[in-house]
């Protein structure tokens, strides 16, 4: 499968997904389905899916302590250990995980291979992937939180503050009369830019183009559509926001109702969101939960001073010293090496092979 097939496949899937609510609401007025039933199903799928996924992961043990150590270990008192990148205890692990989850520490290490003739091989500065990833995730978080104003009544102050900060430029979407309001959210623009970059990078970088699956393009397209419909709705194809809020509040209060007069664009936006959250637990997007369980990051490097228990540790067949000595006794004696049994005694014991079994 080359990238064209991958993009086409995801693109067509995307078009179908856009058409479903468009036709459903636009032509058949199935507002109940797309306003209430689908959102509830998607929410249920998301929560049940995520819980089951995490429980499924948790059911497998972590038999060995395999952190990737990215700094000096704790050893002699006068050698300065790297307590974060090579944590010796829970505190260090917590800090390491915070760095990973909130700042994408490992991705920050990224370099780019430069392979020139000679060969001259160097590893160049490359933080764009890190930056785009960080911008995307934080923009998404802010946008997600901003949307709480549709779900919460009264709207808490922190949502309001976030919104004011996000729109502090007080700049309209277009410098044209009548498009000077509402103020553009910085995160809206950053999100779309970051997604666009991540998509173009996937195509432009030879390696990622080669490894990308439809499952990599699809979430990007889905998020782009989600973002674009949101932007369209806020700035161009405006809908009655109080009606939208009535619908949203109705959903979270389990008194669902579908108010009149919300444009189709809203149902498309909502359907994209529903697709995203329903798709979440079954796709690579579960990295949101998975990162917390990654054994190379969430374990301390303490297995030399705190014993790590493997719950399925089982006794194995080993070659015992007795068997070894039985085979080489004569040569050992000849070489002056100490032995457990002298030859005449060994005769009796030779048959009784004991296998040393270790019990947990």
């Amino acid at each position, binding site marked *: 499968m080359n990238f064209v097939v991958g993009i086409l496949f995801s693109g067509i899937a995307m078009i179908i997904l856009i058409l479903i609510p468009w036709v459903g609401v636009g032509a058949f007025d199935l507002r109940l389905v797309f306003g209430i039933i689908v959102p509830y199903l998607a929410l249920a799928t998301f929560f049940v899916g995520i819980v089951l996924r995490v429980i499924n992961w948790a059911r497998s043990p972590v038999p*060995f302590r395999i952190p990737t150590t990215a700094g000096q*270990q704790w050893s*002699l008192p006068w050698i300065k250990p790297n307590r974060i990148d090579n944590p010796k205890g829970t505190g260090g692990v917590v800090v390491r995980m915070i760095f990973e989850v909130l700042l994408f520490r490992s991705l920050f290490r990224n370099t780019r291979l430069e392979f020139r003739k000679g060969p001259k091989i160097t590893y160049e500065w490359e933080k764009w992937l890190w930056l785009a*990833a960080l911008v995307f995730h934080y923009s998404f978080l802010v946008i997600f939180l901003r949307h709480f104003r549709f779900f919460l009544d009264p709207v808490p102050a922190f949502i309001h503050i976030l919104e004011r900060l996000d729109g502090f430029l007080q700049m309209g979407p277009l410098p044209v009369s009548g498009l000077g309001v509402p103020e553009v959210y910085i995160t809206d623009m950053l999100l779309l830019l970051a997604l666009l970059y991540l998509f173009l990078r996937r195509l432009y970088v030879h390696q990622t183009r080669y490894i990308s699956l439809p499952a990599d393009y699809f979430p990007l397209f889905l998020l782009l559509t989600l973002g674009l419909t949101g932007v369209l709705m806020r700035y161009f194809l405006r809908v009655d926001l109080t009606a939208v809020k009535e619908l949203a509040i109705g959903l979270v209060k389990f008194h669902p109702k579908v108010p009149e007069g919300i444009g189709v664009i809203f149902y498309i936006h909502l359907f994209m969101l529903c697709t995203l959250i329903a798709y979440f637990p079954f796709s690579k997007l579960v990295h949101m939960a998975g990162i917390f369980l990654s054994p190379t990051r969430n374990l301390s490097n303490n297995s030399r001073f705190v014993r790590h228990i493997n719950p399925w540790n089982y006794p194995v067949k080993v070659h015992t*010293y007795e068997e070894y000595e039985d085979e080489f006794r004569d040569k050992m004696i000849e070489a002056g090496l*100490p032995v457990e049994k002298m030859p005449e005694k060994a005769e009796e014991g030779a048959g009784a092979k004991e296998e040393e079994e270790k019990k947990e």
Partner: protein
Amino acid sequence: MSDLPKPEDLAKVKHLPPIWKGWMRTPVEIRSGIYCYGSKPANLEYVGMPNPREWSPVDEDWKLPDNWKQIFLDGLRERLEKFRSLKIFMDICVRCGACADKCHFFIGSGDPRNMPVLRAELLRSIYRKEYTTAGKILGRFAGAREMTYQVLKELWYYFFQCTECRRCSLFCPYGIDTAEITILGRELLNLLGLNTDWISAPVANCYRTGNHLGIQPHAYKDMIDFFVDDIEEITGVRLNPSFNRKGAEILFITPSGDVFADPGTYTCMGYLMLFHYLENLGLDLTWSTFASEGGNFGYFTSHEMAKRLNAKMYAEAKRLGVKWILGGECGHMWRVINQYMDTFNGPADFLEEPVSPITGTKFENAKTTKMVHITEFTADLIKQNKLKLDPSRNDNLVVTFHDSCNPARGMGLLEEPRYIIKNTCNHFYEMPDTTIREQTFCCGSGAGLNAGENMELRMRGGLPRANAVKYVHEKYGVNMMACICAIDRAALPTLMEYWVPEVGITGVHELVGNALILEGEKERKTDLRGEPLPGMEEEEEEENV
């Protein structure tokens, strides 16, 4: 080795994967120079591994049991249930590509399947087909594919092109560790008798004789006695190491490579001299012919085999009644000791918490494993001023240090060896930051890939390391690279000869051996290699005349 291309030809690497043809559609070609020979039946039989038979990876028919597919898939299911790491790593990769150009094999070969992400996708595609709904329904469109004979060959070919060095895992935003995937992938292949003989022969040897090279007890002692003679010739001091001695305080275990082949042997001489020096200060140490291997090729076979071979360390310590264990310079040996040994074969409650008999330093970081790394031990001695050292005896060397993958990324042993080098040498230069410490590059021959028949692969995989050495060689005149790994000492000389012929390889304790001033020694004219010491070149020539 004869058909190994010239360096200038091998260095022409294209990192451009095919644009139009996807990897699932590109059949794998098992190339000579890249693959290792298949395991011989006797070596599998000896340790009771499945499907022993004569086979060759280039044969059409690999002589597998009829139900090979079932065995493989059942094995995968079992491992998913046993290893959370595998489940997580199968599920959460987003294919961001951060790992892609971090792998030394990809850098040196340009083969896109050597991108860590794609190496993992080889197995992930099977996982998706078997365990995910999308994979079952959408097939290739969901990145899933059927397990076929061709796929099996592909898995084999590429899981034996990974040295489990974990460099990719360092850069992965989720910490996905290709080493873990390779280890488990190799376990699955071993269920079908698909190991390489370069791994299965040492495993069988180690099981029987206690070491990978199959050195029998009397020969092991002979070899060390030979070093004792050499040391006497160079220093005039006669050492008296002990073997299998009950009641000693410390058991010393090092890779058998140190006993067997240059330049590891010089490192071994360094250990011997250090131990002799410390005897007067209260060191009571014994070697063992049974626990005569620090390394663990079982680890390149399966977790179970790793445990089976590792067991003899504690078993021998218990039999001899020692208090704790000192471990030599070795890479994967220390990954196993640090991250697996106590879990595998502990608790070692018959041992005591290690304390240096010379300095009284408690090695608290080895409290339960009861095993101390020799560079920790020696660094402590130097810090406490217990060693008389003459670094000028290493003045002919301009040294750099190669962090071995496992002590770096599976342990974090970074400063200890550097401290020793800086105290035993006057000329030390680091390679560029992106190629050392946690970002270090593999020698290209780890995880059982240091055979002769896959020389092209080794030279390709070692290119990033060699390139960094070349840089310091040209900039600072570096002529010696120190390392703390027996596979490095076996593999890097060949690598250097190919890419940077002017640079030699040494263990850290060879440098110690050269610098250490033994009591009652005569004026040394040569180093441990028998080469004239700095300032002694002329005398040497005169003697020769």
